[in-house]
């Protein structure tokens, strides 16, 4: 089974190709060029490097959200175009779940935090004590860093934090957290398409995928205009 995986949910652009149990290639760029400029050339690069015939792909896995609205859509629209022609399904992997998979097997609770703007994070709490299949103590959601710290203190277990929200919220977290906490090293702290691919393969086996036409990002948040309109009408 062969899966192309893409993550453009945050500042990082990452693509990978998984064949059965093996990642054939993984490419990550954390640079200020836009995803629109980097993503397709990166896909082309790993496809060529691994002599992959696109027609042999079984599915495309994508970090489906949350994340930067525009970043999610660049990835989503790109794979919708590729999958449409190849007539293969798209597997939407929750971004925060994929991030947590960087610490698969950790004794600590794994807590990804993405900078969600408006003083919020996209976060979740994952317990890998039982192996590769984490117990999800809190599903991915938008949350203030204060509320998150409150939850973590309540649970009271050691944690590892990762994600692009760390840089932004580290001081606040150090101030608020009363539990033992560490931060991920750079190579494990960002979205990796390899993790999206591995989780994607799992979902694929479980039949959790959609057609190219049906796929759309999971924003976890309404647009500002919709929120304001609802507030006015409330």
């Amino acid at each position, binding site marked *: 089974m062969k899966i192309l995986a893409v993550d453009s949910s945050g500042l990082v652009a990452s693509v990978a190709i998984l064949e059965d149990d093996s990642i054939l290639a993984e490419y990550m760029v954390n640079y200020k060029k836009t995803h629109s400029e980097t993503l397709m050339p990166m896909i082309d690069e790993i496809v060529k490097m691994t002599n992959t015939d696109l027609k042999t792909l079984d599915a495309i896995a994508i970090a489906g959200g949350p994340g930067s609205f525009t970043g999610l*859509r660049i990835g989503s629209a790109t794979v919708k175009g*590729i999958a*449409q022609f190849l007539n293969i399904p798209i597997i939407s992997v929750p971004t925060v779940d994929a991030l947590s998979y960087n610490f698969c097997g950790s004794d600590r609770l794994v807590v990804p935090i993405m900078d969600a703007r408006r003083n919020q994070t996209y976060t979740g709490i994952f317990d890998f004590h039982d192996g590769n299949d984490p117990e999800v103590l809190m599903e991915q959601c938008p949350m203030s860093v204060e509320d998150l710290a409150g939850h973590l203190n309540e649970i009271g277990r050691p944690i590892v934090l990762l994600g692009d929200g760390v840089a932004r919220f580290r001081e606040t977290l150090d101030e608020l957290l009363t539990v033992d906490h560490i931060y991920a090293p750079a190579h494990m702290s960002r979205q990796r398409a390899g993790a999206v691919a591995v989780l994607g393969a799992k979902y694929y086996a479980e039949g959790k995928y959609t057609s190219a036409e049906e796929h759309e990002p999971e924003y976890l948040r309404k647009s500002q205009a919709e929120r304001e309109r609802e507030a006015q009408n409330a």
Partner: protein
Amino acid sequence: MSSKDTYILGIESSCDETAAAVVKNGREVLSNVISSQIAIHTLYGGVVPEIASRKHIEKINQVVTEALKQAGMKITDCDAIGVTYGPGLIGPLLIGVSFAKGLSYASGVPLVGVHHIEGHISANYIENHELEPPFLCLVVSGGHTHLVRVKDYGEYEILGRTQDDAAGEAFDKVARAIGLGYPGGPKIDKVSKEGNPDAIHFPRAHVGDSEYDFSFSGLKSSVLNYLNSLEMKHEQYVQADVAASFQKAVVDVLVGNSVHAIEKFHADKFALAGGVASNSALREAMQKACEERGVKFYRPAPILCTDNAAMIGSAAYYDFKKGIRAGLDLNAVANLKLGERAY
């Protein structure tokens, strides 16, 4: 299908229409599918970019599938994919561009990035098979007001542009002020038919340093001032008269500058393009001005005036013939200038 024929799949998502079309040899429309989002944006009184982007991604696959189906073709039957990459709203543009790149990459069908205004101008090629450059073209829409010399296919000289609001934008703003709502262009056009265009004299702006440039924000302000002054006096305004008088002021300026250019460049062909080219008063006035001067007048049917992908397919055809191809790093450019190629 004759082997010398060229088929282009056009894709357009620069604002609030998700559109795809198949065009043969740049002039013949085999399909023209448009999924409009106007109903949802009407709730907000105008296009909300984030909502537009979300709608585009929901619709893009089915719109493209439908366009190919109606044309009776597969993507690999097409010689190229043409996609709007600017100007427009960046979020919406990125959907079409990213999707087209993915589709082009997987299928091996070459990609051409198209300028949205060039698309609007090219809509005239579809409607009028005998039309060829050079000609003068007035492009008027919700986002653009350009008076252009089309010197050759893909070769443009911008004579004048708006220095503030686009003409269509002024229509939207005035429509909102007199309670007509969004979209303003068609609504003002309709209600103006019952109004007196000479009831109120609104100023026709003359832009100092450029003989062909436009300005509509002063006109818009003077309509708002007029409404305010009546309100202060507790007097009612006549909606149809305000609409008709405002519309006449806009049309006078658009036609005035166009006629000036026709005379200066001794043009023998003149074309209208863009959403506001559907405005009946503008069409009539421009046609009359052209006929009086022996200038052949062209305009696309309303379905080709609004944002659509057939016009993108047509413009892409002429670029494709010149050997122009976009790479996998094609990016959307919100403020792309006409005549500029950003790849």
